[in-house]
């Protein structure tokens, strides 16, 4: 698959006026122009193949949204090169817009005061969808996202979940080749999240839409993204399959044992006791050093085991661990964005 998105050495700096605290500081800001340069994106490079679905992850202020805005052409970069479907987004912003769909979880593109269907009608005209295709896509989305009950309701009266379904439909009605989703599930309940995820996955699978998804919800990533790009302080920390991320940052597993003799402290080679709760103990081990099967055999051979389980590290935990470690080692971590 050829790359549909190419990002090379992308840098975006923001200049913000430095403001001293308090009223006096505020007044001084009026007359002096002390500026502070913040590098929100600091040399990011990656490529996305057509039809891929990638998770673009990072903490608040890590530079995720800035990258998405650079890819959509809304922001001009300080340095670096980007090509999206053969176009340089900020040089051909309006042309690029025909190829992309954008959903910002926090901001709706729908017309607030008018029934949902009016926003769809405008999109049909704006993106020059012919009547038949519009009809077909609208019917399909109405069914998949269950828009029927509220398609004629003014957007301001919709719940967050309904509005988000409307926004997703609006972004995909014209079958864009690339879909940028910036926290599409933020603030939604579990059922609404699941529905959105199913729809995103379906659009990617059935129509081959390339999806770039930024999110803080690791369930989104586990459900949808074979590949993730992790960024921190504007730089790429990791780019690869989720499994490789887990293997690299969380190579250990945990064996949970419940012993008939609650007081015994199990002593198994290649393990380390991490937690204990009554008769239950948690032992960390590295499956590369100590294969799971051997460990389990060992445990049964030495002790009277009443219950046994292997805990896989979940992505949430892994990502949290990566960021926490970064705080300790990075001297620049206190820098604000």
């Amino acid at each position, binding site marked *: 698959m050829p790359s549909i998105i190419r990002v090379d050495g992308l840098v975006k700096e923001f200049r913000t006026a430095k403001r001293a605290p308090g009223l006096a500081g505020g007044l001084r800001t009026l007359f002096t122009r002390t500026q502070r340069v913040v590098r929100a994106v600091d040399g990011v490079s990656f490529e996305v193949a057509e039809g891929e679905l990638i998770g673009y992850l990072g903490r608040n202020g890590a530079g995720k949204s800035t990258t998405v805005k650079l890819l959509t052409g809304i922001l001009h970069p300080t340095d670096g090169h980007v090509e999206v479907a053969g176009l340089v987004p900020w040089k051909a912003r309006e042309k690029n817009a025909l190829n*992309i769909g954008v959903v910002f979880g926090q901001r709706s593109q729908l017309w607030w005061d008018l029934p949902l269907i009016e926003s769809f009608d405008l999109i049909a005209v704006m993106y020059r969808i012919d009547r038949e295709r519009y009809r077909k896509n609208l019917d399909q989305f109405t069914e998949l996202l269950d828009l029927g009950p509220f398609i004629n309701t*003014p957007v301001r009266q919709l719940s967050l979940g309904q509005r988000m379904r409307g926004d997703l439909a609006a972004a995909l009605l014209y079958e864009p080749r690339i879909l940028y989703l910036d926290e599409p599930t933020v603030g939604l309940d579990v059922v609404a999240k699941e529905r959105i995820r199913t729809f995103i996955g379906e659009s990617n699978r059935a129509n081959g839409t390339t999806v770039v998804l930024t999110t803080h919800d690791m369930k989104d990533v586990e459900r949808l993204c074979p590949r993730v790009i992790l960024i921190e302080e504007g730089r790429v920390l990791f780019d690869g399959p989720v499994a490789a991320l887990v293997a690299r940052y969380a190579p250990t597993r945990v064996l949970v044992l419940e012993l008939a003799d609650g007081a015994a402290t199990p002593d198994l080679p290649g393990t380390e006791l991490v937690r204990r709760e009554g008769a239950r103990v948690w032992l960390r081990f590295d499956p590369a050093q100590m294969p799971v099967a051997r460990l389990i055999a060992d445990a049964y051979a030495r002790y009277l085991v009443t219950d046994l389980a292997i805990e896989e590290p979940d992505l949430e935990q892994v990502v949290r661990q990566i960021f926490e470690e970064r705080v300790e080692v990075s001297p620049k971590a206190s820098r604000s964005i």
Partner: protein
Amino acid sequence: MSALPTYFKIASLASQVAYAYRFNVLLQLVGLLLQIFLLRAFWTAIYENRVSVDGVDLATLLTYLTVANLQLWIVFPEGGEILQRRVREGKVALDLARPVSLVGQLISQQVGFTAGLLPLLLAVTPLALVVGVLRPPDTLEAAAAYVVSLVFAYAVIVLIGLLLGMVSFWTMETTGMWAIYRFANLFFSGGLVPLWLFPEPLRTVAGLLPFQTQANIPVSIYIGRLTGVDMLRALLIQCVWIVLLALLVRFVWSKAIRRVVIQGG
């Protein structure tokens, strides 16, 4: 590929939005009628023992003020306010991710909004006859020229609105600027006192500002105070402002687009 159908559709949606706020709009219109009524009471008292001031009789003056205030209400820089709001809310990011120009989107929204308000204004106009004084245009020719001048006035205000709205790309604190604009526009357009009654340095200042294009020029044509060569000269002044402001909008927009910093990103 033409963006015109998109602009028509945006204008049509904007007119529906105006209608969605019809009760608020009607309330505003009540305020407008009150303003016209107060101006009438005030100027009637000033005229008390005089037949005319500066060659203008009371009924003509009151017609000037009534027409001026009706049109100042409908000719409003909505586009600029929309832009300011979209920048503040960070939604301008979505507008910029569209395959049609943002300036085009704003202008069509403003035109649509005005079109949506127009029927409401026309419904109220007969009442303006009661609270104020509203005589028909001076001549048929004056009526035709008035319509042309009104279109020019509208173009000027759309452009001024865009300029004011674009200031939001540099600073979020634009409330004070809008307040100054509103007062300057009401006063220097002639909405409270006709420009010909301004004392001297002030009258020259008013003549150098774009606000005279908003009320004074079209309404002076309406009441027959500007005719012949003077009228053509006034229309030309409006055109000069349109060209100047359009160039300025182009220039400022080219700077603004490079400066875009989306709020809360």
